[in-house]
């Protein structure tokens, strides 16, 4: 292609400048693409890595947290740590592993107060409303209470005892004469502090705190509970009982 072709500046200075811009711009575009991909992939974090109280949802948290460690410094129980390359959560961000050191749910929530960016939402003033995760009985087959024994440890240590964890009584079908006291977590009250997971007496805890995204707490809107709707409406929702067709083989209900 000759220099006089359209679009190619004749002035050697301008041509050089344009060449440079294209080359450097290309390099920067490659860098931006790789960094974007890395940024998106950093949203994945190990299920056992929990965020401090008040942490924004993971995506917003990664846009907000500057990895300063002020929350870590002000945690009196050394619960929080800054992530290293090998730890899993986005590097430099604060997290804790409940089985190692759970959150003690300080009344004055010093970690949130210390956060300069709002990555830990300052609107959280009542630690009982924290949602670091949700406890789940992840192993019904090993939980001692579910085998019909009386362990109750997770229930006893829960700071929101009888609200976040209750013991639900049921019949022990194996022995036929005893009861089973099943620990049931009520997500509405569970803060995800991890005291239960920390205290589970088994080598592998049967109750674990999972990040909210994993525990999936939202009931789909379209599933209505008849009994609740009835209560809301203050009476039956349909006037008369519906007449349903009888589906019996002799009535020709089945093909």
């Amino acid at each position: 292609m000759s220099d006089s072709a359209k679009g190619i500046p004749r002035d050697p200075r301008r041509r050089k400048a344009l060449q440079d811009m294209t080359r450097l711009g290309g390099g920067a575009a490659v860098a931006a693409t790789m960094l974007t991909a890395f940024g998106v992939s950093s949203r994945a974090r190990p299920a056992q890595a929990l965020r401090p109280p008040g942490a924004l949802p993971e995506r917003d948290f990664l846009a907000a947290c500057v990895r300063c460690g002020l929350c870590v410094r002000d945690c009196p129980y050394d619960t929080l740590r800054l992530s290293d390359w090998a730890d899993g959560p986005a590097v430099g961000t604060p997290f804790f592993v409940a089985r190692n050191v759970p959150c003690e749910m300080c009344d004055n929530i010093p970690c949130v107060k210390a956060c300069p960016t709002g990555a830990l939402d300052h609107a959280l003033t009542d630690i009982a409303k924290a949602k670091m995760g949700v406890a789940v009985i992840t192993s019904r087959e090993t939980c001692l209470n579910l085998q019909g024994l009386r362990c109750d440890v997770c229930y006893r240590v829960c700071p929101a005892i009888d609200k976040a964890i209750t013991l639900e009584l049921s019949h022990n079908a194996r022995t036929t004469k005893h009861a089973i006291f099943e620990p049931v977590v009520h997500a509405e009250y569970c803060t995800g502090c991890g005291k239960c997971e920390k205290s589970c007496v088994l080598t592998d805890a049967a109750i674990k705190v999972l990040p909210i995204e994993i525990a999936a707490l939202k009931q789909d809107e379209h599933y209505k509970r008849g009994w609740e709707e009835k209560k809301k409406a203050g009476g039956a929702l349909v006037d008369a009982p519906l007449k349903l067709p009888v589906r019996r083989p002799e009535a020709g209900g089945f093909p």
Partner: protein
Amino acid sequence: MTVNARPYLEARAQKGLWASSKFMVLRRISQVAFLALFLSGPLFGIWIAKGTLASSMTLGVLPLTDPFIVLQSLAARHWPEALSATGAAIVLVGYLVFGGRTYCSWVCPVNPVTDLAAWLRRRLGITFTAKIRPELRLYFVGAVLAASMLSGSVAWELINPVTALHRALVFGVWFGAGGAVAIFLFDLLVAKHGWCGHLCPVGAFYGQIGRVALLRVTADNRAACNDCMDCFAVCPEPQVISPALKGERTGAGPVITAGDCTVCGACIDVCSKQVFHLGLRSRNAAHPLPSTTAPAPAARVISSQPAVLERDLS
């Protein structure tokens, strides 16, 4: 140009040890002091500065936040709390007064690493250097902000070896120091002043502040320059020197106005003729253009950085 392996010898002989290493010593003290402020707490329980260079709280009253990180956070569409916004404003004003890339040469923990690499390079006579355009880092600033916007995260902090090294030192998350080792090898073996001078977007960001910052190095005694080139040998950004030092020809003032100058003072230390001093940007105005005595060559008026242009065209 032959590489001067020991550029400080002449200055030491003429000015003495202190005057020829003053800024280097002061900078090391400053770098250690900044670390000590953060380490006195975890090591001795005396809390002065908490946090890291990304954001910190000093004595419970002074918030400081890296404005470049806040900028990325904004690009990722997070509106920061007042505390980090205030901290970023204070840092911004601080560097507008104290010279922009003074962060690089007086505070940044990577600087001793790259200084060591540069020194070793001179001593070992390593002249090989990959050609990277120093402007690349400015493009990287753009790339980092774009990546922050697209990924919705504070993107550079995912790999930033500068804050990673600081976190490693202050919080003991040691893998983060790996980046600094890589930088050392890169600067030593691959490219002269490779990291700080060509790639680091943090330095490039502070360089933009440096373009208008008050505190500068000036070559106010440039008439005494004997062209020994020692300042070029030690300066981490040698392209910033000639517009000021050789500015007599172009009518440029003696103040090093380029934002890339890190105000490290190495040129002040190394110059046996006492050409360089610390000064204010406003000194340029105090020096009337010498155009009345020596008319500037017309061809050079085009650019304020003739040295850069000359190199481009060669």
